[in-house]
């Protein structure tokens, strides 16, 4: 797979824009996933993932082909997302909990398009609960936890993506795990 991607990158560098389409469709889910888990809502995640691919395209000439493309791409995506989180003003999202209620978000105010089977509702509720717990982590723990457990990157790769020493990666993962343990112990 790496060799196919390398070949496509060479083609894009030579000026064949259409070769980039295969690269995007190969990595779209991974990149979108990272953005979604870190930023927390699908609208912004799509926007960020798109931006990441466009930036990767315009800066492709600075990509060192001896290195792993995915690492470079994830780095662009995580940097963009972390920037967005920092700049983000408190805002209202459908995902956000409605004040004065417990566990009710704005989605619950919308009419459900179709009735879901009970089990599915349960698993969806649990998933969205955990999703929110991940989002409740401070961004620096959130990014390592997302990369480690949702994208299953190796520690070294996380250190490359985030450009932080591997020791720092380990510390953040440990703290992130402890934080999640406390939040999820009652589930």
């Amino acid at each position: 797979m790496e060799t196919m991607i390398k070949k496509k990158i060479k083609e894009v560098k030579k000026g064949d824009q259409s070769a980039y389409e295969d690269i995007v469709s190969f990595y779209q889910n991974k990149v979108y996933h990272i953005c979604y888990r870190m930023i927390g809502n699908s609208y912004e995640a799509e926007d960020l993932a798109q931006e990441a691919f466009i930036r990767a395209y315009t800066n492709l000439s600075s990509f060192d082909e001896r290195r792993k493309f995915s690492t470079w791409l994830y780095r662009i995506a995580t940097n963009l997302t972390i920037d967005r989180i920092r700049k983000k003003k408190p805002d209202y999202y459908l995902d956000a909990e409605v004040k004065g209620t417990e566990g009710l978000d704005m989605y619950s105010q919308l009419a459900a398009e179709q009735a879901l089977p009970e089990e599915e509702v349960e698993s969806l509720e649990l998933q969205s609960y955990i999703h929110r717990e991940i989002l409740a982590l401070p961004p620096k723990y959130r990014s390592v936890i997302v990369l480690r457990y949702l994208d299953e990157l190796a520690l070294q790769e996380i250190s490359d993506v985030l450009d932080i020493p591997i020791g720092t990666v380990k510390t953040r993962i440990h703290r992130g795990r402890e934080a999640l343990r406390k939040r999820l112990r009652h589930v």
Partner: protein
Amino acid sequence: MKCNKEAVMLMHKYLDGELDRDEERRLRDHLQACPSCQNHFHELKRSITLIKNTGPVAAPEGFTSNVMANLPKERKRKNYAKMLQRHPILTSAAIFFILMFSGIFSAWNQDHQVTVSKQENLIIQSNTVIVPEDVTVNGDLVVRNGDLKVEGKIDGDITLINGDFVTDDPENELANGENYQAYASGEVHEVNQVFEWMWYNTKKFVSDIFSTDSD
């Protein structure tokens, strides 16, 4: 073993997949003996399983085509700096020609003095080189920035740079090289334009290289 520090540290090392055999044994022994650490360890593993179970999220439909539609337009303009980097031989050849032609060009512009190749018995009168009637020039004759008037004979090639052939007889208009041929036994060149001048220099340069070989 202290529960709070060392055991927890070992748990995380285990979760990072970095325990050696000795540490693994120590952790296992401790966990068997300490229910609170066992619980801690269990909670850690469980939260990881829970996170992993949130499952992958697929990009929305049409994501790829959206990205493609928003890419900047294809770069038609070639990056010249890159091209130069990629073809060093071509680059050096281009630089060589630029320097050579600019050198020749500036020589054409600067040099306005009448010069004539070293020949005896020639008369130079105000920008006109005269070959007297009774003189036969042996060898090639080069006149630069001046006219040439031939009354005698030239036994060789004539090269006129930035000058004309003149004659006393106005009716016998000498317009082209064929007419000069009457006076010279060799070839006649007339160079009056910059480009001709460059061409002349290039030819001379090439023939100099090859003639030194044959000499």
